[in-house]
């Protein structure tokens, strides 16, 4: 059995590949990503992408911030062998919204902002606010987990090398060739 710290470091790339795949999926199939959820969730790219080129001699880190339209700036690093290490995401369902950063190596979420819970006017309101917040968090975390499970199942089969990777490569080439407005 692998030591936890070793497993974290050795297999961090799985999280980076997941985020790279997720970015590709959002761009090409975003509207269908969360349709199988009990409450359909629409996932979109946020305003920040961090990419890293895991070169043997030195790692190169690139952060792209700004409007969605600037995402093309991330294509070149992908072409040069970088993978996405952090992704800012926006999710929306009929009644809920979420904005958060997702880190690949740890699958951890940060700066998670959600639909507002009801106001807390007395001590009795605290329990309701806690349960509502936990419900909102569980909904989005379970959605992320479902996506990661889908990725994992594919990653250990030849579908990854024979189907997903060539498709991602095609997407990179297509967008790299797209003229910037």
């Amino acid at each position, binding site marked *: 059995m692998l030591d936890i710290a070793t497993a974290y470091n050795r297999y961090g790339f*799985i*999280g980076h590949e997941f985020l790279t795949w997720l970015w590709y999926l959002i761009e090409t199939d975003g509207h269908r990503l969360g349709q199988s959820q009990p409450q359909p969730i629409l996932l979109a790219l946020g305003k920040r992408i961090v990419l890293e080129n895991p070169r043997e001699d030195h790692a190169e880190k690139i952060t792209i911030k700004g409007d969605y339209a600037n995402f093309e700036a991330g294509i070149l690093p992908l*072409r040069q062998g970088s993978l996405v290490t952090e992704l800012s995401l926006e999710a929306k369902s009929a009644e809920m919204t979420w904005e958060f950063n997702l880190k690949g190596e*740890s699958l*951890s979420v*940060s700066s998670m902002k959600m639909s507002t819970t009801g106001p807390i006017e007395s001590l009795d309101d605290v*329990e309701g606010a*806690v349960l509502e917040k936990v419900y909102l968090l569980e909904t989005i975390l379970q959605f992320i987990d479902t996506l990661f499970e889908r990725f994992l199942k594919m990653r250990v089969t030849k579908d990854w090398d024979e189907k997903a990777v060539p498709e991602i490569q095609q997407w990179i080439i297509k967008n790299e060739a797209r003229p910037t407005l």
Partner: protein
Amino acid sequence: MSLLSSAVSITRYRVNGRIEDPVTEAVYTGLRKNMLPEIDDVESAQSVGWTSFQDPFTPSFEGSSFVYGSYFVFSLRIDKKTIPSKLVQKYMAIEIAKKCQATGREFLSRNEKKMIKDNVTSLLGLRIPATPNIYNVMWNYETSLVWFFTHLKGANEELETLFKTTFDLVLTRIFPFTFAESFPGMSGFDLDLLTTLSPTKMLR
């Protein structure tokens, strides 16, 4: 960053093992036994313990106040005393001058200076109040998951240690590899395959 803040950060853990019934009573006993000890009037530089979610400065877990629906919600509090080095220098200079005057010497030995520094640090430690840091914990006992509302390395390490001491349960941080290990959709064969994977080159 608190559970009820407008923006939250979460480190997720899987809890290995179960507590013997009655669970709520066992959690209450554990929390109470490992409640944060106050260190304002003692020399200690740091204190770590559980405190209540709603009232972290007067911890109490009475009346199942840590039970919210089917979750256990409480907080980890880390109190730290930080003595500014310039304050230590100031009181050291005063004490050294006093000792030189009393003994009629111009200099003190390295050992004497070290003893003075230890005394000054210990006296200031008694006078300076500890700064509290509070991090919320949400434990879903049914699914064996714990959410810890910070990514701070030191705080996460304290949580892992205190959780083990309190409940005799080990927390495993969830990240891609540990997620795969606990995912029912991954067979033993899939896991073996996973361990043989190497990074994909997206370049052609």
